[in-house]
């Protein structure tokens, strides 16, 4: 049965833009990606039941590919990060942020450090980090790059390139943790929820790496919906989608994101993110 489901997914993946009236969604590859298709297919089943149209999950590999799929109408709904959501809404006029996770209104990033740096948890980023090496996560990650870089610039008044001896992009939060734990980089900037999940599961040795600073809160992940879905799927469809997302309460489904639940959101919430991204030259 699982085999059947999986092969259907693979086949339909190739048929993406063939059938016009299937509603498709995707999610940025950010949290735990194991058994991705299986878990998100359950979310698709839930949405299918609530929306009364065929719903399909499209697995996507990178932040950029998620935005591209949304822009090219290969998906109509997407679970974006703060920055990727802004990118997507700029490219698809009329699209709206319809919901965010209950944790996302006040999201934060952690700066983590290898114990050999001798750094301790503090109220502000210590001046001693100057000249050390730092790795961000993915280049367009809000929690792994954008906001940490913003707070670094705010505190030290210079770009990471000049502040640190070496700056890298590990590509992924889990990898940032692994690399700082191994001491490959002195410091790392990481999504707090990925860090806490890793600590809880015992996947990280907190004797070797620990949190030295938590950023102030900022808005992050969001569900963004294309503006033309009402025309294509019937009047009131976007409200139905919003309601279905806000009323999702099955812990098994929510664990895929992972969020406690979803709360309403709108485009205006993400204006600060947009401004910061423009300042850093990530948007134009």
């Amino acid at each position: 049965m699982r085999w059947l489901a999986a092969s259907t997914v693979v086949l339909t993946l190739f048929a993406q833009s063939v059938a016009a009236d299937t509603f498709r969604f995707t999610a940025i590859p950010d949290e735990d990606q194991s058994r991705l298709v299986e878990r998100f297919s359950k979310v698709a089943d839930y949405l299918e039941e609530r929306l009364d149209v065929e719903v399909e999950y499209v697995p996507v590999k990178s932040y950029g590919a998620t935005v591209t799929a949304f822009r090219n109408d290969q998906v109509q709904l997407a679970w974006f990060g703060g920055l990727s959501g802004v990118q997507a809404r700029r490219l698809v006029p009329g699209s709206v942020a319809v919901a965010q996770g209950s944790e996302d209104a006040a999201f934060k990033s952690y700066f983590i450090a290898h114990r050999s740096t001798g750094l301790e948890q503090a109220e502000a980023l210590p001046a001693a980090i100057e000249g050390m090496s730092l790795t961000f996560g993915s280049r367009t990650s809000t929690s792994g790059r954008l906001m940490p870089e913003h707070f670094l610039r705010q505190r030290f008044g210079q770009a990471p390139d000049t502040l640190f001896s070496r700056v890298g992009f590990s590509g992924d939060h889990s990898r940032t943790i692994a690399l700082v734990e191994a001491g490959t980089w002195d410091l790392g900037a990481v999504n707090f929820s990925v860090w806490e999940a890793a600590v809880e599961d015992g996947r990280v040795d907190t004797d070797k790496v620990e949190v030295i600073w938590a950023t102030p809160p900022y808005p992050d992940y969001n569900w963004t919906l294309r503006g033309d879905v009402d025309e294509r799927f019937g009047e009131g469809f976007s409200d139905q989608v919003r309601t279905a997302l806000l009323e999702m309460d099955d812990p098994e489904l929510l664990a895929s994101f992972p969020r406690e639940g979803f709360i309403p959101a709108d485009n205006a919430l993400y204006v600060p993110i947009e401004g910061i991204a423009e300042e850093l030259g990530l948007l134009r």
Partner: protein
Amino acid sequence: MTLADHRTPAPRPGWLAGQSTGVRLARHTLTLVALAVVLVPFADLAVLTRDPWAELARMAKGLAWPAWGAMESPLEALGLTVAVALWGTLGGIVLGFPLALLFARSRLIRAGCAFVRAIHELFWALLFLQVFGLSAATALMALAIPYAGIFAKVFAEILEQIPGAPRDALPPGVSRLSRFVYAELPLAWTRLAAYTRYRFECALRASVLLGFVGLPTLGFQLETAFREGRYHEAGALLWLFYLLIASLPWWGHRRLMPLLVLGGAFLLGPWPAVDGGLLWRFVSQDIWPPALLEGDWRGLIDWLARIPDLAPAIGNTLLLGLLGSVGALLVALALWPLACRHFGNPVTRLVGRGLLLFLRSTPELMLAFFFLLLLGPSLLPAWLALALHNGALIAFLVARHADAITPGMPGVNAPGRLAYELLPRLYPGMLALLYYRAEVILRETAILGMLGVATLGYYIDANFEYLLFDVAFFLLLVTAALNIAVDALSRRLRPRETAIIDDPCQR
């Protein structure tokens, strides 16, 4: 008179002087190595090892105890990997063969082929992804287009080297096509087929890599599992790929090919409806600077000014390419005897072949990550990954070449056979292979940007992520120009006579 002759003997040729092939090749090699040694101080090779052992142990455990059950639909991924490689290679032949016939005559075609070859399959995929989405069309075009350029060049060289007598015996006025079908193709067939088989193995590796950008081949899950540290799952997928490559001689038999081609076509499944609008938007707008489209020249200068400083990126790319090539040569020299039938016993050969398979089939990105953990962030992990991967590939081809040689000096011990008989016969081919491979190595520097080494590829990758396709496209053009220049240079430097000794089927 005779006395005078005795008094002024002809000067003895100095060390490494002279024009014999062996000496010239030795000079070539030593110049390359010397150049690398001189330039090493400019490379960023800091070593930093702190606590990599826990993570490395997890990786080793993952490879030793693969979690077969954790894979999500491995058979589909495997089937798709093969189907994409097969159809991508076929597409490359269909496009490349006609070009091969015109290759020698048209400068335009040669330049065009060099251009498509110069861009890495992954970057082609990223370009097509913007238009065709995650579809079989993206995967096939990402393979078929660069392969067309490669096939055109190599096929043209094979056809050039066939004996001319049958061709000359044809009556005048015979058309190009008839001449080709009756006097050229039959003579070249074996070598064309052998090269195609080798290219197919390359296509399998590339097909796995395409998974890294999101096409659902083996690489899709492999990259995710590896990135997130689920090494048992990554181990299972890697083993699956090693087995696929190791068993290629059996399942890749030519009698099975028609079946695989048809089955593969079914796996590739329905095609995306090509959206002309998307395609047009991409070619007419996305890849050009907005200022250029508006004819705003001042804006264009601003646009150029915002592009990161390219000089260090080009320097790093070339340096890594050179160091990678020299490293690959040394690795190949050290490893090829391990897999060759003239040395060792069946057990050592099995181990040797396994080692070469392991090194050439493990994606460079993973080798690089291993060294990144072990040695810290610098150019060094990228260098080692490139040298080992490409060195093992060259060693594999050289060992295969050596196996075809029957030693003619009985009673010589193994080191003697290596030094006096086999190496002199193999080395010209090995060096020629390296010169061809240098082009590939340079292309591969592009995908090691994650190490924080600011090569051109690092910026291309970044701009694809920022969705600044115009900048990415501009940098791709710069990369292509650089590759074409290096290719021209390596063709000029490549010892001439090796073209005859070298078997193009092994490139």
